[in-house]
């Protein structure tokens, strides 16, 4: 009796150790993960005159990364993620234009806090709902923020935007330059910090719980996981990150208009993420970069053509490549490996 007990205890320990090993191994840095950062640094030296565009790409990556946390990992489908981007953008914009607070880095913190707060409050109310109801509620939240801004256009500047924003030099020393070099490096560093943070989250037990909620809410409820609290937590974090992306957007462009709250903005970030692949961190990098470069190229040729192209791309992704570009690469790699084996 005693023997079999200790035997099962060691079996249990072994299983637990395997689980811990699995969780730990996910944390480990893989060499391929350096690739996007090397590409970003290489881009800095290869296209020095396109760095203003480069920082827009980095901001899009950050925004898509925040959506990946809630859509890709927790499975929350929202049509109003632009709300938090907009709150961040207007936090630094209004602070600089109306309060004379134009220090950029503290501005980012303020944006993160306010956007996070908005995420906490709206998430606490909205994340009880699912499906169409949730889609409509998130969409309505973003539009109501936009309408509020429009209502007080004496403060927000309305659709004409906030005029003549200027920000202090970074760390009191690196000023804005014509080619956007300073802001590219700034955006890259901020993205790096945020990425490290997001990576920690998704590979932690908390991240595992989120994936569990995405895969089977009922079972998570059944095993006693505090589903609502976890969803609200991740929604708040994602909102804060989207807020930082929005703040960087205002700082790099030195202007902001109410169009940041547009439905188009929410839809665009979702398209980027889907294009790259959801629930895999680097999907945001690939998707946002591919989308921004294509948009930059094709919309110059013809905006109508670009709109048709993006529509077609969405249809094709849903029909043939549901796991995005990275998913396609993975499948191609897998089928190659299969062919090599025999």
């Amino acid at each position, binding site marked *: 009796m005693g023997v079999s007990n200790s035997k099962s205890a060691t079996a249990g320990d072994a299983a637990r150790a395997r689980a811990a090993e699995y969780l730990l191994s996910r944390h480990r840095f893989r060499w391929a993960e350096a690739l996007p950062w090397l590409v970003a640094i290489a881009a800095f030296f290869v296209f020095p005159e396109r760095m203003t565009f480069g920082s827009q790409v980095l901001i899009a990556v950050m925004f898509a990364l925040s959506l990946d946390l809630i*859509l890709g990992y927790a499975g929350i*489908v929202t*049509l109003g993620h632009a709300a938090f981007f907009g709150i961040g953008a207007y936090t630094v914009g209004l602070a600089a234009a109306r309060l004379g607070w134009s220090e950029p880095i503290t501005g980012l913190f303020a944006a993160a806090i306010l956007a996070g707060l908005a995420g906490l409050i709206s998430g606490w*109310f909205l994340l*009880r*709902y699912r*499906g*169409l*109801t949730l*889609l*409509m*509620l998130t*969409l*309505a*939240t973003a*539009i*109501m923020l936009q*309408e*509020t801004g*429009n*209502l007080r256009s004496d403060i927000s500047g309305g659709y004409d935007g906030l005029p003549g924003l200027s920000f202090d030099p970074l760390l009191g020393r690196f000023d804005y330059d014509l080619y956007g070099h300073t802001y590219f490096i700034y955006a890259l560093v901020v993205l790096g910090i945020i990425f490290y943070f997001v990576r920690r989250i998704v590979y932690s037990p908390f991240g595992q719980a989120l994936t569990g909620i995405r895969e089977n809410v009922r079972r998570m409820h059944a095993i006693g996981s505090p589903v609502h609290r976890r969803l609200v937590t991740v929604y708040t974090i994602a909102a804060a990150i989207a807020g930082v992306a929005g703040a960087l957007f205002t700082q790099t462009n030195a202007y902001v208009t109410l169009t940041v709250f547009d*439905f188009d903005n929410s*839809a665009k970030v*979702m*398209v980027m993420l*889907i294009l790259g692949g959801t629930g895999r961190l680097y999907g945001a990098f690939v998707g946002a970069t591919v989308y921004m470069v294509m948009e930059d190229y094709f919309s110059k040729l013809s905006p*109508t*053509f670009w*709109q*048709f192209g*993006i*529509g*077609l*791309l*969405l*249809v094709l*992704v*849903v*029909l043939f490549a*549901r796991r995005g570009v990275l998913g396609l690469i993975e499948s191609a790699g897998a089928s190659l490996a299969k062919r090599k084996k025999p």
Partner: protein
Amino acid sequence: MPHVANIAVSVLFDGLAYAMFLFITSVGLSVTMGLMGFVNLAHGAFAMCGGFFVVSLTRTLGVGFVPSLIIASVAVGAISVPFERYLYRRLYKSTDLEQVLLTIGLAFMSIATFTYFYGPIPKSVPLPGWLQGDVNLGFRAFPSYRAFLIVVGAALIAVLWYAFERTNIGAKIRAAVDNRRMAESVGINVDRLFTLTFALGSGLAALGGGLAIQLFGLTPSFAVLYLVLFLIVVAVGGLGSLKGTLLAALVLGVFDTAGKYLLADAGGFFIYAVTVVVLLIKPAGFYGRE
């Protein structure tokens, strides 16, 4: 008539006309979403398509306004069938997200296509004489076009109500909305039923699109611009409920019109505030099942 009452009558009348437009355009979306749980963000594209058909028929081919409306609805209803058969059908069992992406992709493609052929400038339609000017109802005059909209809406409500509640096909649709599996197991061909309601819904959307030209002007971006309104009507009314869609259209139509009359600056705020309040209290909408 005293000033306040005059405004109240105007708000009610315009709100009613607006509600009829919302109802006609959204009812098909509600029924198809209730039947299949399919989130169709391309519904506005069918409405926009109908609107442009009406523009072409009246302007280029010289067909009358009312016959054009009927031809456009039938044509769009027919066009929607292959979309349902070959694209939508593949995604009935997919997640909300995939349905959202596919249909918004279709909406973008349709906007680009119509921009290519018709350009981005708002289009109008020539109206027959009896739809221009005012109609006098004894105590005061109302714009004829809005009165026409209310009459058309009321007639459609009567027809749809009869079809839904009193015919065999209507009974089958209600059964399938309530419990799809049960309906299938008693021998109802839900797939075919769905194709039929999808075509009907798209046709009605096209009719709504045609009727909307005079109210808002028609540009290709109509497909996305007003889509949010249709979705709100559906969500607030409750999926698959005729009664709910009508009630939601009335409430939102009147509230929106009142908001725009009384507080012009607040613009679209009211309709969204009402939506949020209703959905927070009744997540499945007025007549949806929780």
